[in-house]
């Protein structure tokens, strides 16, 4: 890739990032442009990858070589598009029937084995090895098993939660809270990581190599907001702004 294209890429990356972040201050046309570009570019990328990596090698080339069997799944796939034409939308049922049957056949046994039997086994198995386990490992196994039972009781609605049952289900709530806390903490960390990634890019494109793309775009945005504020000074704001005030 030539140096010029790298610089143009840097300006586009820094610009779109700053345009999107500008929404944190207030809605503006630059944000709208970036938002629509994101959707359009994403769809365009997906389309070209699908054509180049799926349509051509999986359908066009085999049919060109006389391998006509691929026409059957292709027709089933195309039948889904009849959903958009109400008069013949019934044809899409053939495609959906295949997807449902194929998907269920794959998902049900695998789901039962991986997410049910293996998990039940994983909770019980340590109790067959207690003699060889350290005290901490035994405590850990008891905690996991106890947590599973308590949480299951919390989601068991066929008996009224009162007396001892209520206490057990209440303990289940605490286990759930611990999970939610861990999940929320990790979510915060993940969001900060993503934000860091964007800032890192903005910093990269702020160098002389990219002709100070980040600073100039940021400055332009500030000028726009000041000009917009000056031009609208005294005028009543939008309903959203009025509500915010």
């Amino acid at each position, binding site marked *: 890739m030539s140096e010029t294209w790298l610089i143009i890429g840097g300006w586009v990356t820094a610009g779109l990032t700053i345009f999107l972040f500008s929404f944190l201050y207030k809605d503006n046309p630059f944000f709208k442009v970036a938002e629509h570009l994101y959707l359009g570019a994403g769809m365009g990328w997906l389309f070209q990858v*699908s054509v180049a990596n799926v349509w051509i090698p999986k359908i066009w080339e085999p049919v060109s070589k006389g391998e006509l069997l691929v026409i059957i799944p292709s027709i089933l796939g195309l039948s889904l598009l009849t959903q958009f034409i109400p008069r013949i939308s019934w044809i899409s049922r053939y495609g959906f029937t295949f997807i449902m049957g194929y*998907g269920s056949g794959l998902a049900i046994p695998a789901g039962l084995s991986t997410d049910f039997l293996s998990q039940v086994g*994983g909770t019980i198995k340590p109790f067959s090895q207690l003699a060889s386990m350290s005290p901490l490992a035994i405590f850990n196994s008891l905690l996991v098993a106890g947590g599973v039972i308590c949480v299951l009781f919390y989601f068991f609605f066929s008996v009224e939660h009162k007396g001892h049952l209520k206490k057990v289900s209440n303990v289940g709530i605490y286990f759930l809270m611990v999970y939610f806390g861990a999940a929320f903490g990790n979510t915060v960390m993940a969001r900060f990581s993503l934000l860091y*990634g964007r*800032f890192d890019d903005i910093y990269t494109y702020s160098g002389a190599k990219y002709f100070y793309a980040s600073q100039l775009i940021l400055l332009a945005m500030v000028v726009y907001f000041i000009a917009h504020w000056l031009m609208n000074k005294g005028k009543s704001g939008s309903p959203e702004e009025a509500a915010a005030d």
Partner: protein
Amino acid sequence: MFKEQLQKFFKIDRRWIFLLLAIVLFAPIIKPIGLPNKTIAEATQRVYDNIDKLPAGSFVLFSLDYDPSTRPELHPMATALLRHAFSKNLRVGVVTYIAGSTGLIEDIFAKVPKEYNKVDGVDYVIFPYMPNILATITQMSSDLYGIYSKDRNGADIRTMPVLKGVKSYKDMSFIVCVTGTAILDYWVAYVGDKYSVPVAGGVTAISQPGYGPYLQTNQLKGLIGGMKGAAEYESLIKQPGKGTSGIDALNLAHLLVLALILISNLILLYVKYF
């Protein structure tokens, strides 16, 4: 009067908090502080150990399924994993089931193989993007070449030295899926459990707690979680990268959040009880 002043804190324009957070995250990028990343999670260590113990020449399949939206967390992770694999002289295959991944995969392979003098087709192969992961990974269990006949550049893969003796999962030594989606679940359920192939993962911090049960039952042979996990892996292979440099920013941002929570609660307690 003082209480009224304190209560103003709860009505602060949230944009000030955004600005504060931006400063806290941006400052260490401009001037790194070098806060250490001293702990290595057991799950990350397990991924490292599993790859490290593989004999040279073993075939490892990487499923790199992330797009630019999760790049800051997953790209450093994938880069570190591939560096480790190449440093151990493992044969590497790369598949992807996310259309947006292809550019990011090219980005890694434009620089990492050169560091270890690895050659496309001889030491590694990048398969083209495929939709419908379930159909693809199911077919790969019996015949890899039934679903992939060419690499991402259109070259015939049957004659490639990197794939010599590799026909299905039973010829693969390890599978690592780096993803911000549920694709790791598919690898565990449809490949790891079904064909007894060791599967490990690299996921975003958001998804990380959900994979605890698979780690406990050893259905997952290890897990790298978020940018912290990426930094841990970079420490293990002794090659600091973007994950390690992000730790400063993450630590400071977490301190800010803790400070805000603490201050809010202290003010609330004071206003309510004093």
